[in-house]
Every structure is written in C-alpha cells, then in structure tokens.
C-alpha cells in the first residue's frame, strides 16, 4: 500500500483539501493508498512513499526526491497527472 502524506503550513487547511483531491485522483488511477495530512514543522520526521504539497514549498523540500508539487489543490486532473509522472519515473 502506497503511503502518501499531504503537507501545508499549519497542517489543517490546505493539506486536508489536497488530501481529498489526492484521494479522488488515486481512486481514479485505481491505486490503493493510505493518505495522511501534516504540517511543515513535523513532516521531516515522517516516513512515507510520497509527499504531495503545493508549489510554494518547493524550496523547503530541495533535499528530497519523493515530493510531488501541485499548483491547484482542487484540481484532480493536475494531481493525477503529476502523481502518474512521479510514479512512472520511479520505474
């Protein structure tokens, strides 16, 4: 089961909306996953397969390679595409 964490600043607002969008996207892609939502302060201690967050945090994750960046947290298609690309490049 793929473990995904959505991240935003405070951990309660945007990350939750993003979590719902990722949930819809993953259902459409037919991939089983476990999704949690956390904040920037605590994410670095968490283990997961993929982090999904917004473009604004690109610099904060410069040292990691398992992050997918999204522009519009309500756009299921953008999430689907970006996640597919990410999973494809992982082989």
């Amino acid at each position: 089961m793929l473990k995904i964490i959505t991240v935003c600043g405070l951990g309660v607002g945007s990350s939750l909306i993003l979590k719902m969008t990722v949930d819809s996207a993953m259902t459409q892609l037919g991939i089983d996953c476990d999704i949690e939502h956390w904040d920037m302060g605590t994410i670095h201690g968490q283990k997961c397969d993929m982090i999904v967050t917004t473009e604004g945090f690109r610099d904060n994750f410069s040292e990691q390679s398992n992050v997918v960046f999204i522009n519009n947290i309500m756009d299921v298609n953008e999430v689907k595409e970006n996640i597919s690309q990410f999973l494809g490049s992982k082989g």
Partner: protein
Amino acid sequence: MKVLDFILSIMKTPAIVLGLVAMVGLILQKKNFGKVFSGTVKTAIGLLILSAGAGLLVGEIIPFVNLFTSVFNLEGFATTSEGVVGAMQGAIPEIASASALIMGIGFLVNILLARFTPLKYIFLTGHMMWILSVTVAFLLYVAGLGYTMMIVIGSVLQGMLMIILPALTQPLVRKLTGNDNFGIAHLTTLGTVPAGYIGGLLGNKEKDAEDLKMPKALEFFKDTTMSIAIVMGLFYVVLVLLAGPAKVAEFAGGQNYIIYGVLKALGFTAGILVLLYGVRMFLGELVPAFKGVSDKLVPGAIPALDVPALFSYAPVSLMIGFVTSVVGMIVAMLVSSLVFGVVPLVSIIGAFFTGGVAGIFGNAKGGRRGAVIAGFVYGFLLIFGTAFLSTIYDFASFGAAGIGHDCIDAMAILTAFKLPIVGFILVPVVYVILSIFEVRRKKKATNAK
C-alpha cells in the same frame, strides 16, 4: 423516558456528536466498514486531543500573564483563537456540545442556502468552521439563550456567516485569480478585505510588488513550529529578564529563571502543536464528509478554501504583508497599553497567514505601497481589536485565561452580538444585501456577453 435521556446525553457529548456526523459522511461516501469505524473513532479522539492541547497551552501561558502584570502593571495575553475556543470547549460542557451540533447543522444550513439563494459558497476550511461554531455557541450562551434555541439559532447564524464571509472576499479574490473557481473561507475577512481596499486607496497600482525579489531569510517562517517557538521565546525571555530572578522564583521554584522562561515558551508551543494535532485528526474525516454532501446537493457550488490558496498568486506581497503586519501589531501593542491597559502579544501565525493575505489584496489594488499599507493596517486592527474585545468579554471566566482571539471576524461577531439584537438584525440584512449585489453582478455579466 430513560431512552430519551440516554439519547440526549449522547447528543450532549461533542466527541460523540461529531463522531456520528463523520460516520454518516463516511457511509454516504460508501467507505468500507473498517474505514467508517476508524474514521468515527478518530474524529472523537481528535476532539479529546484538542482539549488536552488547549489545557496545556493555557497552563504554560498563565505564568507569563502573571509576571507581565507584576512587571508592567498591565494585562498581557497571547493571541490564538484556536486556543481560546479549545479552552472554552474544555471548560464549559454546554458550549462544547452546542458548538458540535451548530457545526454539523450549520453546515447543512450552508448547503441549503447555497442551493436556494444566489450566493453559492461552501465554506470548507475546517478549523475556521470549528472556531466559528464555538464563537457562535459562546455568544448565544452569554446572551442567555436556552440550549435548544442556542442550537437552532446558532446553526442558522453559522450557516449564514459561512456564506457571508466568502461572499465579502470574493471581489478581491476574483481580481487576483481572474475567476470564480474558488473562494476564501476564513475568519479574518473583516480585516484583510478593508485593509486591502485601504491599500488600494493609498497605494500605486502601477508598481507591482511581484516585480521585487524577496530575502531568503523570511522563508524560515513557513515552519510554524519554529515561528511560534521563537516569538514566544523572545517574549518570555525578555519578560523574565525584566522581572528578575526573585519574582520568577515564585513560579519557577528552584529552576533558573531564564531556563524557566524558555521552557514555558516551548511548552506553550507544544500546547499549540498538540491542539493542532487534535484539530487535524477531528477534521480529517469531517471535512471530506461535508464536501461529499455538498458536491451531491449543490451543483455550481463555489468551494471556499483556506487562505494559502492565494499565496502562489503573489508570494512577494505575502512576505511584505507578513512583515508590515508584524510592525502594525507591535505599534498596536503600544497603543493598546495606553488606551486599554492591555497588551495582546503578536500573533505570528496571524501575521504570516493573514497579514500576508492583506498584503496580497493590498498589492492587487494598490501595488507595493498598497501591500505595505494593507499589512500594517491589518496587523494594527488585529491587536487593537483583540485588546478592545478583552475589555467587553472576560474570557478567563470561561476557561480561556491568558489568551485572546486573533481572528478579526470572531472579534467583530462577538462585538456586534454584545448587544444581541444588533447582531440578529445585522447578519440577515447583510446576507440579503450581498444576495442582491450578486444577482445584479450576474445580470451585468450576462448582459455584457
């Protein structure tokens, strides 16, 4: 009668009520039994964690308040709306249970109003919905309403406000994003929107803030744990230094006074983080449930989201708004001490998230000067407003000692309803006016085609 009593006592436990709401939402979304069960239990547990966090942060800030009074002879308090409502919920059972029902039924009212009136916003920012529900429960409790009336009237108020606030923000959001794909659901509308317009009046639209470059150092504040720890650390350490080891020993016992100050600041941060963890857990199932229902029942709904949805449109303005709102807050701290004798502390989270939005709106209307002015005005309003609010309400007697609100809309609502009849007339009137404007705007748009 025993069965009725049992049902009533269930309804009075917020953890159970919201757990049930989540359960219904999960069932409607056709999740399997395992997910329904765990989601329901997690919602209930989240509320309990939240209360624990609130208790912790109040405990850590009390020494600050007392030391502040003994050093300055003024009342100082930390500003966090989440802390205030979390503490209130933990202290007063009627407010806790009423707010849970108000939150659940209020959302249904939001959906009904969005379906049948010209204003189509669905308020999706969970923690703001929660703060609003406790605020509404609190003001009706203070107004002396009976429990059932609290819930009926509270739910209608909640639903109306959940549409009014995004509706007030939408003209600026539309200007920024160019469309109505989403709105903004937050409890700082009555600060950020006027600040944005003032920035527009006094600013220069030609000079866009986004053409400027931003210092990297400010990126640091995106980590809220560190932001709170540093700001509270500064305030606490300065205070214990001014108070001196003797005074601090009254609270610290044998511990070194500076170490005590640092530990209290970290403890306060820990309390906020525990509270947020609880909020995150209890909203985790609730908000998707709400959204699921609204997707089915309101075609053409406009999702109203948390403020970061705007950040990518104007990141430099965000930082400008953040910095200038901190300045505005500090100035207001001084002014409040003179005018009201109270000193609310800077809300660093408020400065970043919502001072930043003021900056974004200010830039949209008035360029970089607009952003600077909007941020400053917003920061000033926030601190001055919460100082004023503390003089007309005694939050400490409701469990929230040493803390005050940092959400301007909560402050405005509480002030308007101090004389309840004012609020009861104002809210529906505003709703009707906004509906009329929206109908007119749509007509103009279709005529222009």
